[in-house]
C-alpha cells in the first residue's frame, strides 16, 4: 500500500520561485504587448486549472466557465468603474451603488462571489444531469447569461459593452492569483477530497458505496471552478479594459476544454502546459491569419489538433498524473507494509 502523497514543499517552492523570476524577467525585458500576452496566458492557466478540478477530476462535463467569467467580470467592472461616469453610462444603478468606486481586490472578490453564488443556484438545477446533457445545459447557461446582460442595458450598457474599465491588473497580480488557483487545485487533488472526486469520475456507484456524498462533492467542484472563473473574469476585464456580453462565449468554452483534454484530463501540470502553449500558439498565428486573410485558421488548427489527440492519445499529454519530480515525496516515503 502506498502512503498518501505528501507535498514536496521544496519542489513546489522552487517552481513558484522560478515562475516569479520568469515574471520579473518578462516584466523587465519585454514590450507592453508581450507582457499583456503573458497575462492572458496566465489567466488561461488559471481557467484551465480550475476547470481541471470540475471537468478533469470530477468528470463533470461543464462548458459553463465563460458564463461565470462574464458574471465575475461585469460585477467587478461595475464596482471599479469611475463614479462620475456611472450615472451617464449605467442610469439604472441604485444611487448607493452609483456613487461607489472600489479598489480592484474587493471588486474582484465580490465578482467571484457573485459567480460562485450563481454556480450554487445553477448547480442545484443542472448537476443531476450527466455527460453531454450537462454539457448542453451549461452551454445554455452561457447563452442565458449573455441574453440577460444584453437586455439589462441600464446596468450593463447591453450589447454596446462596457469600455473604459480602468487597467488595474498587472502581471504580478495575475501571477499571484494563478499561483493560488494552482495551489488550491493541487492540494485538492492530493487530498481525500480529490480522491473522492476521482472516484466519482471513475465509477459513481462505487463512490456512493464508499460513502462519498456524490452530489455535494460535484457541487463543490463546480462551485470552486466558478469561483476561479469569476476571478479570472475580473482580472481579464481589468487587463483589456473592455467587455461585451459576448466576450467570453462558446469559442472560449471550447478552447478551455481543448486545453483540459490535450493537457490530460485531471492533470494540473498538463493543464498548465497546454494552456500556455495553446494560448500563445493562437496569438502567434494571428499575424498569419491577417496577412493570408484566413481568419479562423487558428481555431481550425486547434480543433484539428484536438481530434488527432483524441484518436492517437486520448488520455492527453499527462494522463491524469503529474510529472515525477513534483511528486518526489512519493518515492521517498517509506512503503507501509501490509
Amino acid at each position: 500500500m502506498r502512503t498518501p502523497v505528501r507535498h514536496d514543499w521544496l519542489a513546489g517552492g522552487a517552481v513558484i520561485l522560478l515562475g516569479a523570476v520568469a515574471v520579473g524577467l518578462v516584466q523587465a525585458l519585454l514590450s507592453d504587448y508581450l507582457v499583456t500576452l503573458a497575462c492572458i496566458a496566465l489567466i488561461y492557466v488559471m481557467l484551465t486549472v480550475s476547470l481541471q478540478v470540475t471537468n478533469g477530476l470530477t468528470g463533470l462535463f461543464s462548458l459553463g466557465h465563460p458564463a461565470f467569467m462574464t458574471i465575475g467580470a461585469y460585477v467587478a467592472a461595475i464596482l471599479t468603474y469611475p463614479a462620475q461616469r456611472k450615472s451617464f453610462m449605467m442610469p439604472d444603478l441604485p444611487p448607493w451603488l452609483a456613487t461607489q468606486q472600489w479598489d480592484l481586490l474587493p471588486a474582484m472578490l465580490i465578482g467571484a462571489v457573485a459567480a460562485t453564488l450563481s454556480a450554487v443556484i445553477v448547480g442545484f438545477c443542472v448537476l443531476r444531469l450527466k455527460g453531454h446533457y450537462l454539457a448542453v445545459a451549461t452551454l445554455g447557461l452561457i447563452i442565458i447569461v449573455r441574453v440577460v446582460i444584453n437586455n439589462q442595458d441600464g446596468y450593463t450598457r447591453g450589447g454596446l459593452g462596457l469600455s473604459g474599465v480602468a487597467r488595474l491588473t498587472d502581471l504580478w497580480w495575475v501571477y499571484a492569483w494563478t499561483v493560488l488557483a494552482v495551489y488550491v487545485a493541487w492540494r485538492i487533488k492530493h487530498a481525500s477530497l480529490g480522491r473522492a472526486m476521482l472516484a466519482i469520475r471513475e465509477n459513481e456507484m462505487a463512490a456512493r458505496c464508499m460513502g462519498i456524498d456524490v452530489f455535494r462533492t460535484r457541487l463543490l467542484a463546480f462551485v470552486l471552478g466558478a469561483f476561479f472563473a469569476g476571478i479570472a473574469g475580473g482580472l481579464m476585464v481589468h487587463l483589456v479594459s473592455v467587455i461585451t456580453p459576448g466576450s467570453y462565449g462558446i469559442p472560449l468554452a471550447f478552447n478551455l476544454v481543448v486545453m483540459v483534454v490535450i493537457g490530460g484530463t485531471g492533470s494540473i501540470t498538463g493543464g498548465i502546459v497546454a494552456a500556455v502553449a495553446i494560448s500563445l500558439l493562437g496569438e502567434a498565428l494571428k499575424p498569419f491569419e491577417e496577412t493570408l486573410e484566413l481568419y479562423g485558421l487558428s481555431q481550425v488548427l486547434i480543433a484539428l489538433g484536438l481530434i488527432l489527440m483524441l484518436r492517437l492519445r486520448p488520455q492527453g499529454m499527462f494522463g491524469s498524473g503529474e510529472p515525477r519530480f513534483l511528486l518526489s515525496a512519493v518515492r521517498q516515503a517509506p512503503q507501509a507494509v501490509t
Partner: protein
Amino acid sequence: MTQYYLQQLINGLMLGSLYALVAIGFSMIYGIVRLINFAHGDVVMIGAFATLALVGAGTPWLLVAPVVLLTGVLAGITIERAVFRPIRGAPQVTGFIATLALSVMIENGGVMLLSPQPRNFLFPDVMRTRVPIGPATVSLTDLVIIATTLILVGVLVLVVRRTRPGMAMRATAENLAVARLMGIDVNRTIMAAFALGSALAAIAGLLWGGRFGQIDPLMGFAPGLKAFVACVIGGVGSIPGAMIGGYLLGLGEVLFVGLLPPEYSGYRDAFVFATLILVLLVLPNGLLGRSEEERA
C-alpha cells in the same frame, strides 16, 4: 385579433417545421450511435451555401433541391467516416468533444474559405406571393416550408418503418451488438442514418436561407442547439418525438415573442434554454423517449 393569432400560429408552425427537420436527423443519429452530433447544425449551413452556389451558377430551382439533398447525404457520410467511426466505442465524453471539435472546424473553415460576411439569399419572387388563409395572409414561402417538412418526414417515416434498410436501422438503434449478430451490416446502416439525417438538415438550410434572407458560416450554430432542445423535449432518439419537440419549440418561441410585452422579446433565447433545463429536470426522457439510459 384572430388574424394576429392565426398569423403567429403559422409563424410558429413554420419555425417549428425548420426545427423539426433538423431535430429529426439529430435524433436519428443519436438513436443509432448514442452520441450527440454537434456538427449537425453545420450541415444546415452547408446546405444553405450549396444552394447559394447552385443558384449562383444558374441552376433551375427544381434541380437545386435534389442536389442540395445529395450534398447533405455526402456531408453526413463524410462526417461519419472522418470522425464518428474512428471513435466509436470510446467513452461518451470523448465522442462529444470530438463532435464539438468537428463543429468548430466546419464553422471556422467556413469563415476561412467563405468569409464571415453574411450573404443575401433570395427565393424566386413567386415565393413571396401572399396567400389568404381565413382572415390572415401568409407568404407562400411559409406554406412551402411547412409542406416540404411534412412530405419529407412522411417519406422518412415510411423508409424507417417499411423498408429493409429502415428495419436494419431500427434494429441497430435497439442493440448494435445483436444487430451485428443478425447479419446486419452495421457500418452501412449507421452511414445510412447519417446520410438521411444530414439530407434533411441540408434541406432545412435551403429553406432557412430562403425564409430569413441571409446566410453566413456560423448560421448553423443556433439551429443545431435548438434542434437539440427540441429533441430533448420530444425524447431523444424518437423520430415522432423530435418532430413534436420541434413544433412545440417553434410555437413556444413565436408565442413567447408574440404574446408577451415587447420588452421580453429580447429574452427569446434565454427562454429556449431555460425550457431545456426545465425539461431535463422534470421530464428527463422527454414526451416520447424511453428511459433506457440515465440522463439525470
